[in-house]
């Protein structure tokens, strides 16, 4: 790996650090209270930053390395599947939307769990939600962290430990000192890097392949199934691909890292702008990235490890310095996911557990020290775990995405829109969601997918029934918003 690839990355990290310091200055001069400022950016996000932080938080290592790698192997069927993510661009904001923003302000909620706490008025709901969130997101974070280390390792040729250390320090510095605002603004920069990076690479790949019709001829000559919606071996069924509408589309409403963003914006104008920008940017990035994956096939046949398709093809079709800029995009994607999870888990420990139950009247100074301390400590633990990830974490990470969706989607969405939803429904729904998700995961592993759909579908339906049934059966009450 040569120095021309590394320089753009160093410049990129420099900009990220600068934003961290700028945000920490804002933190000192803020008037809205430390917690709201540190964990929610003072509810001041504008449309552009809001859109970008949603896209960037959501678009992780899988969209930038794994996804395109799978498209390389499976063909257009996987691009079709990836495009189900466009719906997240508008769905999360339209569904949670104004009502969530109004109620979050009324309840003075800083975290998603603050909202659940007031809505359901139940300690059990808070603890259950906080514990599942901390466990699942902690594992997801470690997995992403490993991905970041591996990426730097493969790009620079450094040892994994060194690469991981550089990654960890970069993320920790700006998240700890700058809080949510630093996370959101760096996400905006990282999102910009992703848009520009994927566009440059897509154009270069199309030119290298001799134009789209030419690439299509090459694919048809190799295996005609690559240009069908059914995958290279014809094993992507319509039902399976469609079920990703729940996993990576509408179900994303239930992810705490997305929900918290829906309470961070300044006003409805920011929200409307974010809807437009978020939809366009998500679609643009996903389409580009996955087309790059499939178009890389004729240019670079025989890549064994799918995750390396993007770095390899970038180095092949671009001059080194430009490849450096483009490859900052997957790094940006990983960083922007990790930073959001870090600040979210930290907020959950400080606000949902410590302030709620251990020290309700902690002074501003204590809270400040706790927040910085917990964030740093969490980051350090994740770093140590990522050095040699324990099997349990890798195992938990399998459920992080779908499991959280199945657990949170109904307590959040129906908690907002259905007056009869109560704490019994919420508790039953969370238990049902997580347990049925884990159980079904094992079933699908041994016997193939039940009903031919992704694991997430059935638990989401079961947890809906649990929510409605328990809300109506036990102490049915009408909640007045």
């Amino acid at each position, binding site marked *: 790996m040569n120095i021309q690839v590394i320089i753009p990355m160093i410049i990129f990290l420099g900009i990220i650090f600068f934003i961290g310091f700028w945000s920490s200055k804002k933190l000192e001069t803020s008037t809205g209270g430390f917690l709201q400022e540190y964990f929610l950016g003072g509810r001041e996000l504008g449309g552009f930053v809001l859109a970008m932080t949603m896209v960037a938080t959501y678009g992780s290592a899988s969209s930038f390395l794994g996804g395109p790698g799978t498209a390389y192997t499976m063909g*257009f069927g996987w*691009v*079709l599947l990836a*495009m*189900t993510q*466009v*719906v997240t*661009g*508008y*769905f999360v904001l*339209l*569904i949670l*939307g*104004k*009502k969530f*923003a*109004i109620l979050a*302000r*009324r309840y003075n909620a800083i975290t998603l769990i603050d909202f659940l706490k007031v809505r359901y008025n139940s300690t059990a709901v808070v603890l259950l939600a906080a514990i599942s969130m901390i466990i699942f997101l902690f594992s997801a974070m470690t997995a992403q962290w490993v991905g970041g280390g591996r990426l730097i390792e493969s790009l620079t040729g450094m040892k994994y430990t060194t690469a991981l250390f550089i990654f960890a320090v970069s993320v920790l510095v700006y998240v700890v000192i700058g809080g949510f605002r630093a996370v959101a603004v760096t996400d905006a920069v990282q999102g910009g890097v992703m848009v520009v990076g994927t566009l440059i690479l897509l154009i270069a790949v199309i030119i290298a392949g001799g*134009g*789209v*019709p*030419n*690439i*299509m001829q090459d694919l*048809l000559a190799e295996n*005609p*199934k690559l*240009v*069908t*919606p*059914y995958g290279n071996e014809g094993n992507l069924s*319509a039902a399976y691909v*469609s079920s990703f*509408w729940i996993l990576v*589309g*509408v179900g994303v409403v239930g992810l705490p890292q997305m929900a918290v963003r829906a309470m961070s914006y300044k*006003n*409805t*104008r920011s929200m*409307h*702008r974010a*809807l*437009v920008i978020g*939809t*366009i940017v998500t*679609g643009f990035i996903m*389409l580009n990235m996955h087309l790059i994956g499939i178009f890389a096939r004729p240019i670079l046949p025989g890549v064994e490890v799918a995750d390396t398709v993007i770095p390899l093809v970038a180095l092949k079709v671009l001059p080194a310095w430009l490849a450096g800029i483009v490859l900052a995009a997957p790094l940006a994607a990983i960083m922007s996911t990790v930073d959001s999870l870090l600040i979210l888990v930290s907020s959950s420990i400080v606000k949902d557990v410590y302030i709620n139950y251990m020290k309700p009247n902690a002074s501003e100074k204590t809270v400040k020290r706790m927040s910085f301390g917990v964030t740093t400590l969490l980051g350090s633990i994740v770093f140590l775990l990522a050095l040699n990830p324990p099997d349990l974490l890798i195992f938990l990470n399998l459920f992080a995405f779908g499991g959280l969706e199945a657990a949170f989607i109904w307590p959040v969405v129906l908690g907002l*829109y259905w007056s009869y939803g109560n704490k019994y429904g919420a508790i039953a729904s969370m238990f049902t969601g997580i347990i049925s998700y884990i159980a079904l995961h094992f079933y699908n592993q041994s016997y193939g997918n039940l009903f031919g759909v992704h694991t997430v579908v059935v638990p989401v339906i079961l947890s809906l029934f649990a929510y409605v049934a328990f809300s109506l059966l036990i102490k049915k009450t009408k909640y007045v*918003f």
Partner: protein
Amino acid sequence: MDPRFKIAHREALIGVGLAVVHFLWWFGFAYGLGSRPVEEYTYILGFPSWFFYSCIVGFILVAVTVIILAKFILKDVSFEDEGDEV
């Protein structure tokens, strides 16, 4: 009920409606045109027609719809409760 919630409920329903129409468009073109034998595929700008309509045109139409929604349909409301802060 808080009149702002009426607006919020209406807009959440718009979100659900858009997602349903989006899904039907995506599914209809992908599997409607894509289930033919590969030899009968037609190509637009080099892309197989099922993919072009389902993913590229579909994405553009959704983007245009969202722009129209944001400009003309969605309403501005205040997030603060009245009388809370002056």
